[in-house]
Protein backbone atom coordinates (compact mmCIF):
# COMPACT_ATOMS: atom_id res chain seq x y z
CA UNK A 1 0.00 0.00 0.00
CA UNK A 2 1.87 3.00 -1.24
CA UNK A 3 1.78 6.33 0.46
CA UNK A 4 0.53 8.17 -2.60
CA UNK A 5 -1.30 5.46 -4.51
CA UNK A 6 -4.93 4.94 -3.59
CA UNK A 7 -5.78 1.34 -2.74
CA UNK A 8 -8.94 -0.35 -3.92
CA UNK A 9 -9.87 -1.87 -0.58
CA UNK A 10 -9.57 1.33 1.38
CA UNK A 11 -11.48 3.27 -1.29
CA UNK A 12 -14.24 0.68 -1.10
CA UNK A 13 -14.44 0.77 2.68
CA UNK A 14 -14.17 4.54 3.00
CA UNK A 15 -16.83 5.08 0.33
CA UNK A 16 -19.08 2.59 2.09
CA UNK A 17 -18.39 4.13 5.49
CA UNK A 18 -18.94 7.65 4.28
CA UNK A 19 -22.19 6.72 2.53
CA UNK A 20 -23.48 4.96 5.63
CA UNK A 21 -22.63 7.98 7.78
CA UNK A 22 -24.14 10.30 5.17
CA UNK A 23 -27.34 8.28 5.00
CA UNK A 24 -27.77 7.82 8.75
CA UNK A 25 -26.89 11.40 9.62
CA UNK A 26 -29.03 12.89 6.84
CA UNK A 27 -32.00 10.93 8.00
CA UNK A 28 -31.61 10.88 11.76
CA UNK A 29 -29.45 13.90 12.58
CA UNK A 30 -29.32 16.68 10.02
CA UNK A 31 -32.99 16.53 9.17
CA UNK A 32 -34.29 17.04 12.73
CA UNK A 33 -31.46 19.40 13.66
CA UNK A 34 -31.85 21.62 10.61
CA UNK A 35 -35.63 21.55 10.89
CA UNK A 36 -35.44 22.47 14.58
CA UNK A 37 -32.96 25.25 13.84
CA UNK A 38 -35.16 26.58 11.09
CA UNK A 39 -38.20 26.46 13.29
CA UNK A 40 -36.41 28.16 16.16
CA UNK A 41 -35.08 30.85 13.87
CA UNK A 42 -38.54 31.45 12.53
CA UNK A 43 -40.04 31.62 16.00
CA UNK A 44 -37.31 34.02 17.12
CA UNK A 45 -37.91 36.13 14.05
CA UNK A 46 -41.63 36.23 14.61
CA UNK A 47 -41.11 36.98 18.30
CA UNK A 48 -38.81 39.84 17.39
CA UNK A 49 -41.30 41.08 14.86
CA UNK A 50 -44.18 40.98 17.31
CA UNK A 51 -42.02 42.68 19.93
CA UNK A 52 -41.24 45.38 17.40
CA UNK A 53 -44.93 45.65 16.62
CA UNK A 54 -45.80 45.89 20.30
CA UNK A 55 -43.16 48.57 20.74
CA UNK A 56 -44.56 50.51 17.82
CA UNK A 57 -48.04 50.17 19.23
CA UNK A 58 -46.82 51.36 22.59
CA UNK A 59 -45.16 54.34 20.97
CA UNK A 60 -48.34 55.07 19.05
CA UNK A 61 -50.42 54.80 22.20
CA UNK A 62 -48.06 57.06 24.05
CA UNK A 63 -48.12 59.61 21.27
CA UNK A 64 -51.88 59.43 21.18
CA UNK A 65 -52.08 59.85 24.92
CA UNK A 66 -49.80 62.81 24.77
CA UNK A 67 -51.89 64.28 22.02
CA UNK A 68 -55.04 63.79 24.06
CA UNK A 69 -53.44 65.33 27.12
CA UNK A 70 -52.19 68.21 25.03
CA UNK A 71 -55.60 68.77 23.49
CA UNK A 72 -57.23 68.56 26.90
CA UNK A 73 -54.85 71.16 28.21
CA UNK A 74 -55.60 73.47 25.32
CA UNK A 75 -59.30 72.94 25.83
CA UNK A 76 -59.04 73.61 29.53
CA UNK A 77 -57.08 76.77 28.93
CA UNK A 78 -59.65 77.87 26.42
CA UNK A 79 -62.48 77.11 28.79
CA UNK A 80 -60.82 79.01 31.58
CA UNK A 81 -60.19 81.89 29.28
CA UNK A 82 -63.74 81.90 28.03
CA UNK A 83 -65.13 81.61 31.55
CA UNK A 84 -63.10 84.49 32.80
CA UNK A 85 -64.14 86.52 29.81
CA UNK A 86 -67.77 85.68 30.39
CA UNK A 87 -67.43 86.58 34.02
CA UNK A 88 -65.87 89.88 33.09
CA UNK A 89 -68.63 90.51 30.61
CA UNK A 90 -71.31 89.69 33.15
CA UNK A 91 -69.72 91.95 35.70
CA UNK A 92 -69.41 94.70 33.12
CA UNK A 93 -72.99 94.26 32.05
CA UNK A 94 -74.16 94.26 35.64
CA UNK A 95 -72.18 97.37 36.33
CA UNK A 96 -73.59 99.14 33.31
CA UNK A 97 -77.09 98.05 34.19
CA UNK A 98 -76.69 99.05 37.79
CA UNK A 99 -75.42 102.41 36.74
CA UNK A 100 -78.32 102.85 34.36
CA UNK A 101 -80.75 101.77 37.05
CA UNK A 102 -79.21 104.04 39.56
CA UNK A 103 -79.45 106.95 37.10
CA UNK A 104 -83.04 106.17 36.38
CA UNK A 105 -83.88 105.94 40.06
CA UNK A 106 -82.10 109.20 40.70
CA UNK A 107 -83.92 110.85 37.85
CA UNK A 108 -87.25 109.55 39.05
CA UNK A 109 -86.44 110.73 42.51
CA UNK A 110 -85.46 114.13 41.18
CA UNK A 111 -88.63 114.32 39.13
CA UNK A 112 -90.71 113.32 42.13
CA UNK A 113 -88.92 115.85 44.30
CA UNK A 114 -89.50 118.47 41.65
CA UNK A 115 -93.18 117.65 41.44
CA UNK A 116 -93.53 117.69 45.17
CA UNK A 117 -91.64 120.93 45.34
CA UNK A 118 -93.87 122.43 42.75
CA UNK A 119 -96.98 121.20 44.46
CA UNK A 120 -95.69 122.55 47.74
CA UNK A 121 -94.95 125.88 46.12
CA UNK A 122 -98.43 125.99 44.58
CA UNK A 123 -99.86 125.20 47.95
CA UNK A 124 -97.74 127.87 49.54
CA UNK A 125 -98.80 130.34 46.87
CA UNK A 126 -102.42 129.54 47.52
CA UNK A 127 -101.88 129.79 51.25
CA UNK A 128 -99.92 133.03 50.85
CA UNK A 129 -102.64 134.36 48.59
CA UNK A 130 -105.34 133.42 51.00
CA UNK A 131 -103.35 134.84 53.88
CA UNK A 132 -102.77 138.02 51.89
CA UNK A 133 -106.42 138.19 51.07
CA UNK A 134 -107.33 137.75 54.71
CA UNK A 135 -104.72 140.34 55.70
CA UNK A 136 -105.97 142.63 53.01
CA UNK A 137 -109.55 142.10 54.03
CA UNK A 138 -108.71 142.79 57.62
CA UNK A 139 -106.72 145.85 56.63
CA UNK A 140 -109.42 147.03 54.32
CA UNK A 141 -112.03 146.35 56.95
CA UNK A 142 -109.99 148.43 59.37
CA UNK A 143 -109.18 151.22 56.86
CA UNK A 144 -112.59 151.56 55.57
CA UNK A 145 -114.31 151.17 58.89
CA UNK A 146 -115.39 154.79 58.72
CA UNK A 147 -117.60 156.36 56.09
CA UNK A 148 -115.24 159.22 55.58
CA UNK A 149 -112.51 156.86 54.56
CA UNK A 150 -114.79 155.16 52.16
CA UNK A 151 -115.80 158.62 50.73
CA UNK A 152 -112.20 159.63 50.35
CA UNK A 153 -111.48 156.51 48.35
CA UNK A 154 -114.37 157.00 46.17
CA UNK A 155 -113.33 160.52 45.50
CA UNK A 156 -109.86 159.58 44.66
CA UNK A 157 -111.16 156.90 42.29
CA UNK A 158 -113.38 159.33 40.65
CA UNK A 159 -110.50 161.81 40.28
CA UNK A 160 -108.49 159.18 38.45
CA UNK A 161 -111.35 158.46 36.17
CA UNK A 162 -111.73 162.10 35.25
CA UNK A 163 -108.11 162.57 34.51
CA UNK A 164 -108.21 159.71 32.13
Amino acid at each position, binding site marked *: *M*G*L*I*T*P*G*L*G*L*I*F*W*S*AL*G*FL*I*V*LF*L*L*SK*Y*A*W*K*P*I*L*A*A*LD*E*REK*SIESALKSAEQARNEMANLKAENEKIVHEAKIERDEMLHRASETAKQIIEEARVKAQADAGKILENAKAAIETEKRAALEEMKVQVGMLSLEVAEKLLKKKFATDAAQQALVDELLKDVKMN
Partner: protein
Amino acid sequence: MLRKFLSISLLLSVILLNVSFPVLAAGDGESKTGFILPHVMDNYEWHFATIGHTHVTLPLPVIVYSPDQGLEVFMSSQFHDHETHEISENVVVNGYYIDKTYKLKAADSSRVFYDFSITKNVAMMFIIMAVILFLMLSAAKHYRKSPGTAPKGIASFIEPIVVFVRDEIALPNIGHKKCLKFTPYLLTLFFFIWIGNLLGLFPEAANFTGNISLTFTLAIFTFIITNLNGNKDYWKHVFATPGVPAPLLLIIVPVEIIGLFTKPFALMVRLFVAITAGHIVILSFIALIFVFESYAVGVASTIMVVFINFIELLVATIQAYVFTLFSAMYIGLAVAEHEHHH
Protein backbone atom coordinates in the same frame (compact mmCIF):
# COMPACT_ATOMS: atom_id res chain seq x y z
CA MET B 1 6.38 30.80 32.04
CA LEU B 2 6.21 28.52 29.01
CA ARG B 3 8.66 30.69 27.10
CA LYS B 4 11.11 30.64 29.97
CA PHE B 5 10.86 26.86 30.16
CA LEU B 6 11.30 26.61 26.43
CA SER B 7 14.41 28.79 26.32
CA ILE B 8 16.01 27.03 29.27
CA SER B 9 15.45 23.61 27.75
CA LEU B 10 16.78 24.78 24.40
CA LEU B 11 19.88 26.14 26.12
CA LEU B 12 20.29 22.90 28.05
CA SER B 13 19.96 20.87 24.91
CA VAL B 14 22.70 22.83 23.20
CA ILE B 15 25.04 22.41 26.18
CA LEU B 16 24.26 18.77 26.67
CA LEU B 17 24.58 18.06 22.97
CA ASN B 18 28.15 19.32 23.09
CA VAL B 19 28.90 17.18 26.10
CA SER B 20 27.57 14.31 24.00
CA PHE B 21 26.05 11.37 25.77
CA PRO B 22 27.46 7.98 24.96
CA VAL B 23 25.33 6.45 22.27
CA LEU B 24 23.96 3.24 23.65
CA ALA B 25 21.42 2.47 21.03
CA ALA B 26 21.62 -0.65 19.06
CA GLY B 27 20.90 -0.53 15.37
CA ASP B 28 21.36 2.11 12.76
CA GLY B 29 19.62 5.45 12.17
CA GLU B 30 17.11 3.84 9.88
CA SER B 31 15.52 1.82 12.65
CA LYS B 32 15.25 4.84 14.89
CA THR B 33 13.18 6.80 12.41
CA GLY B 34 11.72 3.79 10.71
CA PHE B 35 8.46 3.97 12.64
CA ILE B 36 7.43 7.21 10.94
CA LEU B 37 6.40 5.96 7.54
CA PRO B 38 4.61 2.82 8.76
CA HIS B 39 2.58 5.07 11.01
CA VAL B 40 1.32 7.35 8.26
CA MET B 41 0.75 4.42 5.94
CA ASP B 42 -1.85 1.70 6.09
CA ASN B 43 -1.20 -1.72 7.57
CA TYR B 44 -2.90 -5.06 8.01
CA GLU B 45 -2.59 -4.98 11.77
CA TRP B 46 -2.82 -2.23 14.33
CA HIS B 47 0.47 -1.98 16.13
CA PHE B 48 0.30 0.00 19.34
CA ALA B 49 3.58 -0.55 21.14
CA THR B 50 6.57 -2.77 21.54
CA ILE B 51 7.46 -3.53 25.14
CA GLY B 52 10.77 -5.34 25.21
CA HIS B 53 10.22 -7.93 22.53
CA THR B 54 6.48 -8.19 22.95
CA HIS B 55 4.42 -6.46 20.31
CA VAL B 56 1.09 -5.05 21.38
CA THR B 57 -0.91 -5.37 18.21
CA LEU B 58 -4.52 -5.71 17.22
CA PRO B 59 -4.76 -8.29 14.45
CA LEU B 60 -7.28 -7.35 11.78
CA PRO B 61 -9.12 -9.50 9.26
CA VAL B 62 -7.70 -9.82 5.78
CA ILE B 63 -10.45 -10.10 3.19
CA VAL B 64 -9.41 -11.09 -0.29
CA TYR B 65 -11.51 -11.85 -3.30
CA SER B 66 -9.98 -13.58 -6.27
CA PRO B 67 -11.78 -15.07 -9.25
CA ASP B 68 -10.07 -18.42 -8.79
CA GLN B 69 -10.18 -18.83 -4.99
CA GLY B 70 -13.33 -16.82 -4.26
CA LEU B 71 -13.75 -14.83 -1.03
CA GLU B 72 -11.20 -15.54 1.66
CA VAL B 73 -11.13 -14.14 5.19
CA PHE B 74 -8.34 -14.71 7.68
CA MET B 75 -6.61 -12.82 10.45
CA SER B 76 -3.50 -10.79 9.77
CA SER B 77 -1.82 -12.46 12.74
CA GLN B 78 -1.41 -15.53 10.55
CA PHE B 79 1.29 -13.64 8.67
CA HIS B 80 3.40 -13.42 11.85
CA ASP B 81 6.85 -14.89 11.88
CA HIS B 82 7.09 -17.40 14.73
CA GLU B 83 10.27 -15.98 16.15
CA THR B 84 9.88 -12.21 15.84
CA HIS B 85 6.07 -12.15 16.11
CA GLU B 86 6.05 -9.54 13.38
CA ILE B 87 4.60 -9.67 9.92
CA SER B 88 7.21 -11.18 7.68
CA GLU B 89 7.23 -11.42 3.94
CA ASN B 90 8.42 -15.00 4.24
CA VAL B 91 5.13 -16.16 5.68
CA VAL B 92 2.70 -17.20 2.98
CA VAL B 93 -0.95 -17.75 3.88
CA ASN B 94 -3.39 -19.11 1.29
CA GLY B 95 -0.98 -18.08 -1.42
CA TYR B 96 -0.58 -14.47 -0.17
CA TYR B 97 2.19 -12.68 1.67
CA ILE B 98 2.65 -9.12 2.94
CA ASP B 99 5.73 -7.38 1.61
CA LYS B 100 7.97 -4.82 3.29
CA THR B 101 5.86 -1.90 2.07
CA TYR B 102 2.82 -3.43 3.80
CA LYS B 103 1.25 -4.54 0.55
CA LEU B 104 -0.57 -7.83 0.17
CA LYS B 105 0.84 -9.81 -2.71
CA ALA B 106 0.08 -13.11 -4.25
CA ALA B 107 2.87 -15.66 -4.14
CA ASP B 108 2.04 -16.38 -7.73
CA SER B 109 2.46 -12.91 -9.19
CA SER B 110 0.32 -13.68 -12.23
CA ARG B 111 -2.82 -14.15 -10.13
CA VAL B 112 -5.51 -11.45 -10.06
CA PHE B 113 -7.11 -10.67 -6.72
CA TYR B 114 -8.96 -7.83 -5.00
CA ASP B 115 -8.00 -6.80 -1.50
CA PHE B 116 -10.88 -5.68 0.72
CA SER B 117 -9.10 -6.15 4.04
CA ILE B 118 -10.17 -4.41 7.19
CA THR B 119 -6.86 -2.61 7.50
CA LYS B 120 -5.73 -0.31 10.26
CA ASN B 121 -7.31 2.66 8.48
CA VAL B 122 -10.60 0.86 7.94
CA ALA B 123 -10.68 -0.06 11.63
CA MET B 124 -9.91 3.57 12.41
CA MET B 125 -12.77 4.60 10.14
CA PHE B 126 -15.16 2.39 12.07
CA ILE B 127 -14.14 4.14 15.27
CA ILE B 128 -14.56 7.54 13.61
CA MET B 129 -17.96 6.52 12.27
CA ALA B 130 -19.03 5.33 15.70
CA VAL B 131 -17.91 8.59 17.32
CA ILE B 132 -19.64 10.73 14.68
CA LEU B 133 -22.84 8.73 14.81
CA PHE B 134 -22.85 8.77 18.60
CA LEU B 135 -22.24 12.54 18.74
CA MET B 136 -24.73 13.51 16.08
CA LEU B 137 -27.49 11.11 16.99
CA SER B 138 -27.35 12.08 20.66
CA ALA B 139 -27.36 15.72 19.60
CA ALA B 140 -30.33 15.08 17.34
CA LYS B 141 -32.17 13.41 20.21
CA HIS B 142 -32.37 16.75 21.97
CA TYR B 143 -34.07 18.36 18.97
CA ARG B 144 -36.54 15.53 18.64
CA LYS B 145 -37.39 15.34 22.31
CA SER B 146 -37.60 19.01 23.20
CA PRO B 147 -37.93 21.07 20.06
CA GLY B 148 -37.83 24.79 20.35
CA THR B 149 -35.69 24.84 23.48
CA ALA B 150 -32.11 26.04 23.80
CA PRO B 151 -29.54 23.34 22.99
CA LYS B 152 -27.99 21.41 25.86
CA GLY B 153 -25.01 19.12 26.23
CA ILE B 154 -23.70 17.72 22.96
CA ALA B 155 -26.33 19.63 21.02
CA SER B 156 -24.96 22.93 22.28
CA PHE B 157 -21.51 21.89 21.03
CA ILE B 158 -22.77 20.65 17.66
CA GLU B 159 -25.28 23.37 16.94
CA PRO B 160 -22.92 26.32 16.36
CA ILE B 161 -20.86 24.18 13.98
CA VAL B 162 -23.96 23.08 12.10
CA VAL B 163 -25.09 26.68 11.88
CA PHE B 164 -21.62 27.70 10.74
CA VAL B 165 -21.53 25.10 7.96
CA ARG B 166 -25.03 26.03 6.88
CA ASP B 167 -24.69 29.83 7.05
CA GLU B 168 -21.03 30.37 6.25
CA ILE B 169 -20.24 27.53 3.87
CA ALA B 170 -23.40 26.28 2.17
CA LEU B 171 -25.51 29.42 1.99
CA PRO B 172 -23.05 31.95 0.51
CA ASN B 173 -21.59 29.49 -2.01
CA ILE B 174 -24.63 27.59 -3.19
CA GLY B 175 -27.32 30.17 -2.69
CA HIS B 176 -30.63 30.26 -0.93
CA LYS B 177 -32.64 28.10 -3.28
CA LYS B 178 -30.46 25.04 -3.52
CA CYS B 179 -28.34 25.05 -0.39
CA LEU B 180 -30.85 22.97 1.56
CA LYS B 181 -30.30 20.05 -0.79
CA PHE B 182 -26.53 19.99 -0.29
CA THR B 183 -26.24 21.02 3.36
CA PRO B 184 -26.52 17.42 4.68
CA TYR B 185 -23.65 16.35 2.42
CA LEU B 186 -21.49 19.29 3.43
CA LEU B 187 -22.26 18.75 7.12
CA THR B 188 -21.36 15.08 6.88
CA LEU B 189 -18.20 15.93 4.95
CA PHE B 190 -17.15 18.51 7.52
CA PHE B 191 -17.70 16.32 10.55
CA PHE B 192 -16.28 13.22 8.87
CA ILE B 193 -13.03 15.01 8.06
CA TRP B 194 -12.89 17.04 11.25
CA ILE B 195 -13.55 14.19 13.68
CA GLY B 196 -11.25 12.01 11.57
CA ASN B 197 -8.48 14.59 11.76
CA LEU B 198 -8.92 15.03 15.51
CA LEU B 199 -9.03 11.32 16.30
CA GLY B 200 -6.02 10.85 14.03
CA LEU B 201 -4.03 13.04 16.39
CA PHE B 202 -4.32 10.50 19.19
CA PRO B 203 -1.13 8.58 19.81
CA GLU B 204 -1.08 5.35 17.81
CA ALA B 205 -4.22 6.33 15.98
CA ALA B 206 -4.23 5.62 12.26
CA ASN B 207 -3.68 8.39 9.79
CA PHE B 208 -7.11 7.89 8.23
CA THR B 209 -7.88 11.38 6.90
CA GLY B 210 -4.27 11.73 5.75
CA ASN B 211 -4.65 8.67 3.59
CA ILE B 212 -4.83 9.26 -0.14
CA SER B 213 -7.51 6.60 -0.61
CA LEU B 214 -9.87 8.41 1.73
CA THR B 215 -9.17 11.87 0.32
CA PHE B 216 -9.55 10.37 -3.16
CA THR B 217 -12.94 8.92 -2.22
CA LEU B 218 -14.21 12.15 -0.71
CA ALA B 219 -12.97 14.17 -3.69
CA ILE B 220 -14.74 11.73 -6.02
CA PHE B 221 -17.97 12.25 -4.07
CA THR B 222 -17.69 15.99 -4.51
CA PHE B 223 -16.83 15.47 -8.18
CA ILE B 224 -19.87 13.25 -8.74
CA ILE B 225 -22.24 15.56 -6.86
CA THR B 226 -20.88 18.61 -8.67
CA ASN B 227 -21.23 17.16 -12.15
CA LEU B 228 -24.52 15.35 -11.57
CA ASN B 229 -26.06 18.63 -10.48
CA GLY B 230 -24.37 20.76 -13.12
CA ASN B 231 -26.98 22.80 -14.94
CA LYS B 232 -27.09 23.96 -18.55
CA ASP B 233 -25.03 27.06 -17.81
CA TYR B 234 -22.32 24.98 -16.17
CA TRP B 235 -21.89 22.62 -19.11
CA LYS B 236 -22.19 25.47 -21.56
CA HIS B 237 -19.39 27.17 -19.70
CA VAL B 238 -17.24 24.05 -20.11
CA PHE B 239 -17.96 23.09 -23.73
CA ALA B 240 -18.91 26.39 -25.31
CA THR B 241 -17.53 29.07 -23.07
CA PRO B 242 -19.64 32.12 -23.81
CA GLY B 243 -17.90 35.21 -25.13
CA VAL B 244 -14.86 33.31 -26.44
CA PRO B 245 -14.12 33.37 -30.19
CA ALA B 246 -14.39 29.99 -31.93
CA PRO B 247 -10.66 29.44 -32.58
CA LEU B 248 -9.85 30.08 -28.96
CA LEU B 249 -12.38 27.45 -27.93
CA LEU B 250 -9.93 24.86 -29.20
CA ILE B 251 -7.68 25.83 -26.34
CA ILE B 252 -10.27 26.86 -23.76
CA VAL B 253 -12.44 23.75 -23.93
CA PRO B 254 -9.63 21.29 -23.14
CA VAL B 255 -8.52 23.56 -20.32
CA GLU B 256 -12.06 23.65 -18.97
CA ILE B 257 -12.34 19.87 -19.21
CA ILE B 258 -9.04 19.44 -17.41
CA GLY B 259 -10.37 21.95 -14.88
CA LEU B 260 -13.24 19.59 -14.09
CA PHE B 261 -10.70 17.08 -12.83
CA THR B 262 -8.14 19.38 -11.28
CA LYS B 263 -10.70 20.64 -8.80
CA PRO B 264 -11.28 17.30 -7.04
CA PHE B 265 -7.60 16.48 -7.54
CA ALA B 266 -6.67 19.60 -5.58
CA LEU B 267 -9.14 18.60 -2.88
CA MET B 268 -7.62 15.15 -2.66
CA VAL B 269 -4.00 16.28 -2.52
CA ARG B 270 -4.58 19.19 -0.13
CA LEU B 271 -6.15 17.14 2.64
CA PHE B 272 -3.75 14.23 2.19
CA VAL B 273 -0.67 16.45 2.29
CA ALA B 274 -1.80 18.65 5.17
CA ILE B 275 -2.66 15.82 7.49
CA THR B 276 0.15 13.45 6.53
CA ALA B 277 2.75 16.21 6.77
CA GLY B 278 1.52 17.13 10.23
CA HIS B 279 1.84 13.54 11.39
CA ILE B 280 5.30 13.25 9.90
CA VAL B 281 6.45 16.45 11.60
CA ILE B 282 5.20 15.30 14.99
CA LEU B 283 6.75 11.86 14.56
CA SER B 284 10.00 13.39 13.37
CA PHE B 285 10.27 15.42 16.54
CA ILE B 286 9.68 12.26 18.51
CA ALA B 287 12.26 10.45 16.36
CA LEU B 288 14.80 13.14 17.23
CA ILE B 289 14.69 11.91 20.82
CA PHE B 290 15.72 8.41 19.72
CA VAL B 291 18.31 9.72 17.30
CA PHE B 292 20.06 12.00 19.80
CA GLU B 293 19.27 9.99 22.94
CA SER B 294 19.61 13.09 25.04
CA TYR B 295 17.33 14.21 27.85
CA ALA B 296 17.61 17.80 26.70
CA VAL B 297 16.53 16.94 23.19
CA GLY B 298 13.78 14.90 24.78
CA VAL B 299 12.51 17.93 26.67
CA ALA B 300 12.83 20.25 23.69
CA SER B 301 11.27 17.75 21.32
CA THR B 302 8.39 17.09 23.65
CA ILE B 303 7.72 20.79 23.90
CA MET B 304 7.84 21.06 20.14
CA VAL B 305 5.55 18.06 19.80
CA VAL B 306 3.05 19.69 22.15
CA PHE B 307 3.34 22.90 20.16
CA ILE B 308 2.91 21.14 16.81
CA ASN B 309 -0.02 19.22 18.26
CA PHE B 310 -1.76 22.50 19.01
CA ILE B 311 -1.09 23.60 15.46
CA GLU B 312 -2.41 20.27 14.25
CA LEU B 313 -5.63 20.86 16.17
CA LEU B 314 -5.94 24.06 14.19
CA VAL B 315 -4.97 22.35 10.93
CA ALA B 316 -7.52 19.59 11.58
CA THR B 317 -10.26 22.19 11.75
CA ILE B 318 -8.95 24.33 8.91
CA GLN B 319 -8.58 21.39 6.54
CA ALA B 320 -12.09 20.15 7.31
CA TYR B 321 -13.33 23.69 6.71
CA VAL B 322 -11.35 24.11 3.50
CA PHE B 323 -12.43 20.78 2.04
CA THR B 324 -16.06 21.54 2.81
CA LEU B 325 -15.76 25.11 1.61
CA PHE B 326 -14.24 24.15 -1.73
CA SER B 327 -16.78 21.37 -2.20
CA ALA B 328 -19.52 23.92 -1.59
CA MET B 329 -17.88 26.30 -4.04
CA TYR B 330 -17.63 23.68 -6.78
CA ILE B 331 -21.23 22.62 -6.23
CA GLY B 332 -22.24 26.26 -6.13
CA LEU B 333 -20.54 26.91 -9.46
CA ALA B 334 -22.35 23.96 -11.00
CA VAL B 335 -25.83 24.94 -9.83
CA ALA B 336 -25.49 28.72 -10.10
CA GLU B 337 -28.20 30.49 -12.04
CA HIS B 338 -26.09 32.71 -14.27
CA GLU B 339 -25.45 36.09 -14.19
CA HIS B 340 -22.87 36.00 -16.99
CA HIS B 341 -19.73 37.82 -16.02
CA HIS B 342 -17.76 38.93 -19.03
